[in-house]
């Protein structure tokens, strides 16, 4: 898994609540059996004026100039600001894959949908929850200042604005540890294989009907 330690990049404001996974990556692009290549179709229906097709070359497609990520001042954005309940909807990991492939490293919002939030950490993408007031402040600042860059420091659990203001955020110790070190969850869990086997033996004794039935 990709590490996340310290990142500085252009921030872009996406001023809406309930941005759902179908919006992040529309369903026609989910048919790939790979994990990469979803970035060009990130926010496809908002980003382009035509209806996107899978495997289509996107460079010549008509752009929606109003869409935030198409505006010249936000080119190369790697930090996204959004409103509440970002990532609601499907459990598809294609949503964080698309954000990551596009170049987004961190999303900052007042709240996230749980499955999406969880999926981000598996892909080196850092979702940060700040209060509504703090997110409001970031929206105001980024809209007022072209070239606004934000620094995200995971080790110290702060985001640093261009003026040097440090805003602290909370994160689970386990998730932080995995992300800082790029650790593989499966490898970590398999260190406890003996515990899993012991549990499994107990489970089989208590609920034997759950073993060997599906074949």
């Amino acid at each position, binding site marked *: 898994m990709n590490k996340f330690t310290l990142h500085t990049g252009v921030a872009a404001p996406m001023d809406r609540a*309930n941005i759902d996974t*179908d*919006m992040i990556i529309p369903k*026609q692009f989910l048919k790939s*059996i*790979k994990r990469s290549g979803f970035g060009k179709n990130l926010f496809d229906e908002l980003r382009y004026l035509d*209806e996107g097709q*899978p495997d289509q070359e996107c460079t010549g497609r008509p752009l929606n100039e109003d869409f935030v990520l198409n505006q010249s001042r936000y080119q190369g954005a790697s930090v996204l600001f959004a409103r509440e309940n970002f990532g609601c909807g499907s459990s598809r990991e294609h949503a964080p894959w698309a954000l990551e492939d596009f170049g987004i490293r961190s999303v900052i919002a007042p709240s996230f949908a749980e499955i999406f939030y969880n999926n981000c950490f598996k892909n080196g993408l850092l979702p940060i929850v700040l209060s509504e007031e703090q997110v409001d402040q970031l929206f105001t600042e980024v809209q007022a200042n072209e070239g606004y860059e934000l620094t995200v420091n995971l080790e110290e659990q702060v985001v640093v604005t261009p003026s040097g203001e440090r805003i602290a955020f909370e994160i689970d110790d386990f998730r932080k540890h995995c992300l800082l070190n790029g650790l593989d969850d499966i490898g970590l869990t398999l260190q406890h294989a003996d515990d*899993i086997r012991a549990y499994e033996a107990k489970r089989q004794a208590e*609920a034997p009907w759950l073993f060997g039935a599906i074949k």
Partner: protein
Amino acid sequence: MAGQTLYDKLFDAHLVRTNDDGSSLIYIDRQVLHEVTSPQAFEGLRIAGRQPWRIDANIATPDHNVPTTERSGGVEQIVDPVSKIQVKTLDDNCDEFGILEFKMNDQRQGIVHVMAPEQGAILPGVTAVCGDSHTATLGALGALAHGVGTSEVEHVLATQCLITKKMKNMLVRVDGELGLGVTPKDVVLHVIGVIGTAGGTGYAIEFGGDVFRNMSMEGRMTVCNMAIEAGARVGLVSVDQITVDYVEGRSFAPQGAQWELAVEAWKDLVSDADAEFDETVVINGADIDPQVTWGTSPEMVVSVNDQVPNPANETDQVKIDGINRALEYMGLNADQKITDIKLDRVFIGSCTNSRIEDLRDAAKVVEGRKVADNIIQALVVPGSGLVKEQAEKEGLDKIFVEAGLEWREPGCSMCLAMNPDKLGNGEHCASTSNRNFEGRQGFGGRTHLVSPAMAAAAAVSGNFVDVRELIK
């Protein structure tokens, strides 16, 4: 000490270990796999040189991409080359690892969340995951079921465990009785309208009260299915005789002496009378009318006899912006009557509403009537081959076809338009599915979520009507 909730009991019974950082490793009894979210997980196993921990904990079927039109030619007949690759990849992966799969033209194939309980693959008291957020459906059996992402699909394949954190407990209690023509779908849409699309985030929601105690398993599945639309990964209903009766005799359910043992063990799968919930929402069943969503989030829902909301009545700017954006996308005006919304298509199906009871409800309404002239297409897509077979035994297919609806092969279909069933740009659809997000049912498509009975009423009327007027 206060008693335990059903969620607490299920969680504790599956706890393998608690890590120092507060996260927990829980054992997963069942994983259900489909073609969209599993290929990268199998690929991950191969790259790491890992084998599945326990083959007999898994069951698979393709559902999202399968065509619902005539498909006797099998996978090779799938026109969309990318869909074909995904379905084929599932077949190949299941063959390679020895996982039981009901392939596209197997009678037992169906939407994962319809197929798995129908087969008895999901039983009371189990933990289950699937790479699909509507896995919450399975909580209707008193099972702890999580939707997970692909990395977690791979994690469960490789370790039979999930790293998780205990959720909070919410009780949604619906007391009393439902009125005539008011269905489980209306109940859950109403609940989402009350608590909001993020109201359940961080919670496992248990649905309790007389309305759920008297509800069939099919209805309970419809309700738990949409827990995720209220933000909750997990929906649950305590086990009772209705649960036990539903499970008895299914293919992978215990039999003989084991059945007796299992039923005895399942008796404890209820929230204790003195269990404490972190949050309780109480609704009177008699207050619920047939529901229709007007916007682009499931919480944007009103009763059929209401009007589209007016942003002028709101004070919160983010909410006002949300309503305005939804009105524009949906092509509706503030204060417009719901019954004035003209429809173009009707979709009866999806993991929310494609079970036999749903089809019976819809057939009852369309029987002896005809699809309205302005409806371009009205689809009925059963949730599995076995649901289809049962419906045909009861003659429901003939009722639908006679009325002018199309009778299809099982799959996810127009719920998310990954197969050829989709809405045209700007078209309004009365849909029994679960998400009305922008573009979900097709580019520019406008989805209104309703019950099967309400969708059927819309099909024969051409616009929304209160189904109670048709079934008096």
